[in-house]
């Protein structure tokens, strides 16, 4: 890609979401006072821990099955 094309693409890449985010930021100025923010963060942390635990358990179970099959 030519340098001038890259520069114009970079400006567009930054300018396009600028309108979206600037508008959004105006409406959500004090997000620390919005209970949905805290609740969502807590829920996501719990979900991430849950997914990790499920993945570890699944891996352990699959490994045990593989080891049993190898012994047989």
């Amino acid at each position, binding site marked *: 890609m030519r*340098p001038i094309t*890259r*520069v114009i693409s*970079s*400006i567009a*890449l*930054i300018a396009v*979401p*600028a309108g*979206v*985010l*600037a508008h*959004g*930021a105006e*409406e*959500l*100025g*004090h*997000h*620390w006072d*919005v209970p*949905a*923010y*805290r609740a*969502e*963060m*807590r*829920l*996501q*942390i719990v*979900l*991430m821990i849950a*997914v*990790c635990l499920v*993945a570890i358990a699944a891996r352990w179970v699959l490994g045990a099955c593989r080891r049993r099959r190898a012994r047989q």
Partner: protein
Amino acid sequence: MSGIWIIAKMSLLENSRKQVFHVLCLLMLAVIGSSTLLTIFTEGVQIKILKDLCMTCILFGGAALAIALGATGIPNDVESRTIHPLIARPITRTQYVVGKYIGTLITVALGVAAMTAAFAVLIYGYQHSFDSFLGIAILFTLLEVAVVAAIATTISAFVSPAIATVVTFMAYLAGTIKIGYIGGLIERSQSGVSKAIYSLIYHALPNLESFNFKTSLVHHDVVPASYLWQVAIYGLCYIAFVLVVGASYFSSREV
């Protein structure tokens, strides 16, 4: 651990030489510098606009760098086969992915630091003092950018650089308007299936607006310390989770 730092150092050297890094940094510095031309406003308003514009620039610039560098690191190594001599060494694929991420993050942090320095000089020129909240606002902007870089790195482990760039960019936009827009979509949706899909997207996307304390910096609003700690822990957990997903997939991927 040393394997991670060696890969990180190599990634930093590689990224800092890329044209996109220099172009984006210079572009943002130019925008920050040009914010001094807003002399049509009164000084008080001018300072507020300057802070708003500069913080937005730092955020966009940092996010653009994170996407541009994070989405291309791993696929470029795989495509150019420079990855082979590296993973033939006693390092795990996880160490490689984390090392690439840290290298990208350090490069982005350097860009953010340069923009912050320019911003700080401008603010001092106007106010003859620094805002006490500036450091915290910048730190959380960097944390937001770190989340974006983690998403870019993880997605790039799955798909080509072009697709990774687009998907990360869309995730970044969606993550910023998540609570208001996607939350509204969930409330308004009629069918159970669409509600489930929107909910899945809603809970998977990072809540990027949580990291934005621009208004606090501009209007000198007080943010509770407990909230800051919660956001910090949330950001670090999200980064760790996303990297674990990426590293797990890359560990079994054939190169």
